[in-house]
């Protein structure tokens, strides 16, 4: 008969033995992608309460936007008063939400000037848009995403630790967010008001390169 006390003692001895026979660990040079993910995790660990509050706030805001959408659905007066994508900063986030009823059919776009070295690894089709993921050999990520009003009423991006710059993309006002952290991913966000589409590109690129990337986006249908 094996008692719990015997198991406790033997399990401890088994673990001690396993720890004494671990593979030899050399200092490993972790990839930039891993370091970025860990920085986010450490930031979340360092501010657990704020993280929980922000999650709560995000949930509440989504509920508010859903409610707002419901009001718009039943109120012609409310629908008449607003139209298009609206941007609202909120704590460390930017909320983009669509207001209006003249939703267009979903347009298709593509990035025509993908920087050298990036390979398209995934295309994610969602109800309201598409996400193109490109990857380089060093695991650098480039994400091009667009969301049409036809399928999505809101989405948000985190801009914590970013500096904002107002720029233009093919004559349309846009925002570039440059990370305050070295080697981090930067982002450009802009809209095509005529099609009710909002775009963003995340990439390890500077402001000028992001604008160039954004200006290379072309409609394909």
């Amino acid at each position, binding site marked *: 008969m094996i008692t719990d006390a015997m198991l406790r003692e033997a399990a401890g*001895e088994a673990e001690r033995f396993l720890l004494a026979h671990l*593979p030899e660990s050399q200092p490993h040079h972790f990839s930039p992608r891993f370091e970025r993910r860990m920085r986010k995790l450490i930031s979340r660990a360092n501010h657990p309460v704020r993280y929980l509050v922000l999650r709560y706030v995000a949930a509440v805001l989504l509920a508010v936007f859903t409610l707002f959408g419901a009001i718009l659905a039943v109120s012609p007066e409310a629908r008449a008063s607003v139209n298009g994508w609206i941007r609202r900063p909120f704590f460390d986030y930017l909320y983009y939400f669509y207001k209006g009823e003249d939703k267009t059919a979903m347009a298709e776009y593509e990035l025509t000037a993908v920087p050298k070295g990036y390979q398209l690894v995934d295309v994610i089709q969602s109800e309201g848009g598409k996400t193109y993921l490109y990857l380089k050999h060093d695991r650098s990520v480039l994400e091009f995403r667009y969301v049409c009003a036809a399928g999505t009423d809101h989405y948000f991006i985190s801009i914590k630790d970013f500096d904002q710059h107002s720029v233009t993309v093919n004559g349309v006002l846009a925002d570039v967010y440059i990370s305050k952290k070295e080697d981090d991913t930067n982002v450009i966000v802009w809209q095509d008001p005529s099609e009710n589409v909002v775009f963003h590109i995340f990439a390890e690129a500077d402001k000028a390169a992001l604008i160039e990337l954004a200006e290379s986006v072309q409609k394909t249908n």
Partner: protein
Amino acid sequence: MFVYLQMIETPEERSKFESIYLLYRDTMYAVAYRILQNPQDAEDTVHHTFLKILENLSKIPEIDCPKTKGYIVTIVENRAIDIYRRKKAHPTVPYDEKNVGTTVAYDGSDALAECILKLSPRQRNLLILRYHHGYELKEVAKMLGITYSNALTIEKRAKKKLKTICEEAEMI
């Protein structure tokens, strides 16, 4: 409100996770890499393990101690085995079966510990977390990313197999 919230995050609590990260990341990578033989998969495993550690940070009383190291190695090994099995089901690169889990020949004097080491890594890890670390089965299930009923089944089978191994070794 935020001023108050910031105040209850003590510097000690703030640095705990980061200290664990800096102390164990290379060991965790080595454990994951031994199983997966792929740098990206090993890094993903380490990242996922830190997510689990963050969820259970309050259960780690001391940063630099064998018990914490054992707990972390157990979690990372378990995750690496999960990824290994998934990759094996959809193979894109060859994996070597013999690298799955830590398998070492015991040369100590505790016969029951020797039998525990003959269990599968998942069974062994569950018993170590349950009986050496003293976690409830529900907590272990959460740490290993399995359902409670699955954890119950693994524990039941582990004990049954342990009994068989002990009988074969004429321990009981």
